[in-house]
């Protein structure tokens, strides 16, 4: 009796379940008009105000698809091609002492509710945020801006409180920037900090279609008047992508499954093994940044071994160099990325324009660079790392690994430091360390042990790198344990509450040689005593007069001045000499694309936009995608 009822119920459920594959994946929206992107699990799903705290830096499409500002930089681009004038019609114009910036705006751009975009919106954006501390860009505006003038509806003049040759970068999108507020909307709002902006008014080509109140998905729709936007103006035909779906696709395993089920076109990040699985099981329906191994897209951030310079003995550059020479970078590359790592010996990410601006020109200098170990000098640089890694991964990937060293360098980086335990030992002895059996003792006679902090869960590849480096150090007599900080990672780094850590402390424009993006905050003025929280850069608390001089010089040259590259090189050389942190590699992101419905994704060969849905310039990818002709 009971069994029969149960069986009937099970059958009914199964009957309901069977058609799920045949059914539309998204109710009411044709799959071949929608691009499905990995999005976040939103907590405040009904919140679309980009300017309130927590509202900016959204990864649900709001800033990527509806926001716009004056200029964009493609982190993958090089030279002039990396620069895009968006709402501005031209590059910024500064006066001679960099206390005034004038911007010309484009005409014919409209908000999605039909109101025209004008200079008043720009002025309103600045004034409102200054008036409301706590809004996203309130602080930088307050620090920099004396006043904003609008001589005519297409011109904005910013009068600055002090000279600042990089003021325009506040309005230049790499990942995000100060988005322009719709004046006509916010004017009617009592408190811009508590206004949800739901639905948001769009200044870009897409507009909110619908969203999940539980925060699992948001759907954006192509504007009917997509041509009246800065991005639309440049297009010669309507984008094929009519709908953009940001969906929370779950943990990395679920993401892989969903892509292989063709329910997720764009993945933001998965582990290398997940990537390899897709490459193995779905090679015909997937595209990657590199056509084969190492697949990954290098983000312009620089995972490094950070040392807290306020904690002895990490204030000693010989110790830092010794630790660098104890690292076998090939194992680190294999352990963290299964070899798919883009190695970096210089203290700037090996991506975008940095390759041609810094890495390639400095190879010779690196090869000849000498380190004095106290007893002798060595030349630690090894330009053949790429070939060595290629040899390691060849058994697995075979023909996908080219033999041309230039191609290999594009995949695995230009080179890195040779492992040299002997030299490292000499450096440690130079710093007053002694070896007791297989254990290094600090000058004070206590064992040299290290706690190496990693984030752990959200950035697994760095945790993996951490464990392998810890093992290498431990085997050489420096007991190292890996400490998972989880959500407290950022704070502990900011507060100087660590000895050593694996994280990034350098990020760049990617598409521009200017290093002010991170370098500005490395000035010793901003260094706090141990235990106090610092701005989230210069996490190593590296203090050096020569560095201050470079920073101060950089402030006085223009953004596109050739001197920028010279100063950049000065910084890079100083960083090699001091080794304030050990740069390891670019942050490689595995972001495979499903080509079942869409083609024309960016790649290393055609890097017209960044790979990965978090980047705002993904919007350039979305409008460029083409429907796959072979899809029914």
């Amino acid at each position: 009796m009971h069994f029969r009822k149960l069986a009937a119920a099970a059958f009914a459920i199964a009957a309901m379940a069977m058609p799920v594959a045949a059914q539309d994946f998204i109710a009411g929206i044709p799959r071949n008009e929608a691009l499905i992107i990995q999005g976040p699990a939103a907590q405040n799903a009904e919140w679309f105000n980009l300017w309130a705290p927590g509202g900016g830096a959204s990864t649900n499409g709001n800033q990527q698809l509806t926001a716009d500002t004056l200029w964009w930089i493609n982190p993958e681009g090089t030279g002039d091609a990396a620069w895009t004038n968006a709402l501005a019609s031209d590059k910024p114009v500064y006066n001679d002492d960099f206390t005034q910036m004038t911007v010309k705006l484009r005409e014919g751009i409209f908000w999605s509710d039909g109101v025209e975009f004008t200079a008043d919106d720009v002025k309103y954006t600045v004034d409102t945020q200054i008036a409301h501390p706590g809004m996203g860009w309130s602080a930088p505006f307050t620090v920099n801006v004396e006043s904003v003038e609008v001589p005519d509806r297409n011109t904005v003049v910013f009068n600055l409180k002090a000279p600042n040759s990089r003021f325009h970068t506040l309005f230049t999108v790499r990942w995000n920037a100060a988005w322009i507020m719709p004046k006509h909307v916010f004017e009617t709002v009592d408190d811009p900090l508590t206004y949800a902006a739901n639905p948001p008014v769009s200044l870009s080509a897409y507009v909110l279609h619908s969203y999940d109140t539980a925060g699992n998905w948001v759907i954006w729709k192509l504007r009917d008047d997509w041509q009246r936007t800065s991005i639309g103006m440049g297009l010669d035909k309507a984008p094929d992508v009519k709908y953009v779906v940001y969906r929370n696709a779950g943990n990395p395993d679920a993401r892989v499954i969903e892509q292989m089920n063709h329910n997720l076109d764009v993945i933001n990040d998965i582990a290398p093994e997940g990537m390899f699985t897709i490459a193995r099981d779905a090679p015909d329906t997937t595209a990657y940044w590199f056509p084969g191994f190492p697949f990954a897209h290098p983000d312009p951030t620089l995972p490094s071994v950070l040392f807290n310079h306020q904690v002895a003995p990490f204030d000693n550059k010989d110790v830092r160099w010794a630790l660098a020479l104890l690292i076998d970078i090939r194992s680190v590359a294999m352990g963290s990325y299964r070899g798919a790592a883009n190695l970096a010996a210089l203290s700037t990410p090996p991506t975008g324009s940095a390759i041609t601006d810094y890495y390639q020109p400095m190879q010779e200098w690196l090869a000849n660079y000498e380190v004095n170990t106290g007893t002798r000098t060595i030349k630690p640089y090894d330009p053949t790392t790429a070939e060595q890694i290629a040899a390691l991964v060849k058994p697995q990937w075979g023909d996908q690994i080219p033999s041309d060293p230039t191609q290999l360098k594009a995949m695995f980086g230009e080179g890195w430091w040779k492992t040299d335990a002997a030299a490292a030992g000499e450096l440690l002895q130079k710093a007053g360390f002694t070896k007791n059996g297989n254990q290094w003792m600090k000058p004070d006679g206590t064992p040299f042990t290290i706690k190496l902090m990693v984030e752990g869960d959200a950035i697994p590849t760095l945790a993996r790198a951490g464990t392998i480096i810890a093992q290498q150090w431990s085997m050489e007599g420096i007991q190292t344990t890996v400490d998972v900080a989880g959500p407290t990672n950022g704070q502990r780094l900011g507060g100087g509450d660590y000895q050593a850590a694996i994280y990034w402390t350098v990020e760049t424009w990617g598409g521009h040689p200017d290093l002010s993006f991170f370098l500005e905050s490395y000035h010793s003025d901003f260094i706090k005593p141990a235990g106090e929280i610092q701005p989230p850069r210069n996490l190593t608390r590296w203090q050096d007069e020569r560095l201050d001089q470079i920073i101060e010089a950089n402030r006085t040259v223009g953004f596109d001045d050739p001197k920028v590259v010279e100063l950049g090189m000065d910084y890079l050389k100083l960083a090699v000499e001091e080794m304030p942190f050990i740069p390891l590699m670019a942050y490689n992101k595995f972001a495979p694309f499903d080509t079942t419905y869409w083609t024309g994704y960016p790649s290393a060969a055609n890097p017209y936009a960044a790979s990965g849905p978090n980047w705002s310039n993904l919007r350039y990818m979305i409008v460029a995608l083409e429907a796959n002709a072979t899809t029914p």
Partner: protein
Amino acid sequence: MDGFAKYLVRRFFQFFLVIFLGVSLAFLITNLSPVDPVEQSVALMTSFGATDPRSVELMRQALQELYGLQGTILDQYVSFWGRVLRGDFGPSLSAFPTPVMSLIMSALPWTIGLLTLALVLTWTLGNLLGALAGYYRSNLLLKLSGAAIMALHPVPAYIIGLVLLLALGFIWPVLPISGGAQMNLQPGFTFDYIRSLILHGTLPALTLVLVGIGGWFISMRSLVSNIVTDDHVVYAELGGVNSGKIFSQYVARNALLPQLTGLALSLGNVFGGAVITEFLFNYPGVGRLLIQGIYRGDYSLVLGVTTMSIISVAVAVFIIDLLYPLIDPRVRLG
């Protein structure tokens, strides 16, 4: 005063005392948490942009003020209770300025729906099988299913969920593996929506059932094996009462009474969410909210969820204490 009223007053006092102590403890622990919501917000707002250190300092001060995090821990404790008594947990710090209450309220229906269903299913199935296995001890089918349940019992929830996800979402992809309902489907009492809810809820619910069934099964089986030797059961057997009736009315019914208390407690715990399952299947419930809150240092949110959970467990225990005399005719309050 009448004895019952006296009992009620005492029980009420204890009820409030439990809530007061529990919530205070939770407040204390949450406030000891080193994750600083201001730093989390600052990090989020600055991590991707060009950052001017002077601005960051300014931003930090502004947020500190905005979040109302100034004052001593005692001040915050007092104002916390003031708000809780008004049913307000303040604004969420990670989803500022959305009130914590409205975050919880939007996650709660999902969690309650999923967990209540799964719990009732688990409870019913676990107790039924446990009672049958305890009563018909020589039945081979029951022995086998008992062994299967026993083997499943120690397997961690995450593994069970993962295996189900793989099996029914990938190898034989018949069920959606993520989210609470189909995208872009209008919520409402429509066939499509309800079907979608059921389909999306199946995997997480199945996980919860498989995870939870063992506990009920084992305790029920041992309860029943004790009851079958009770005089009234032996007497009914001597009286030729048919065995189906003995099983249902004499054995199972008596054994179920203590299990009801367990059910009530578990129902109270529903408000804490099913963290791992929600996390794995991306189910938009309280458990996922809680984890996000913990990760982002949103202790208003964590405290809100914890407080709700404490209150609901206390209420569940309170209610079962009051209702028990009605369920079990033998029990008298005193």
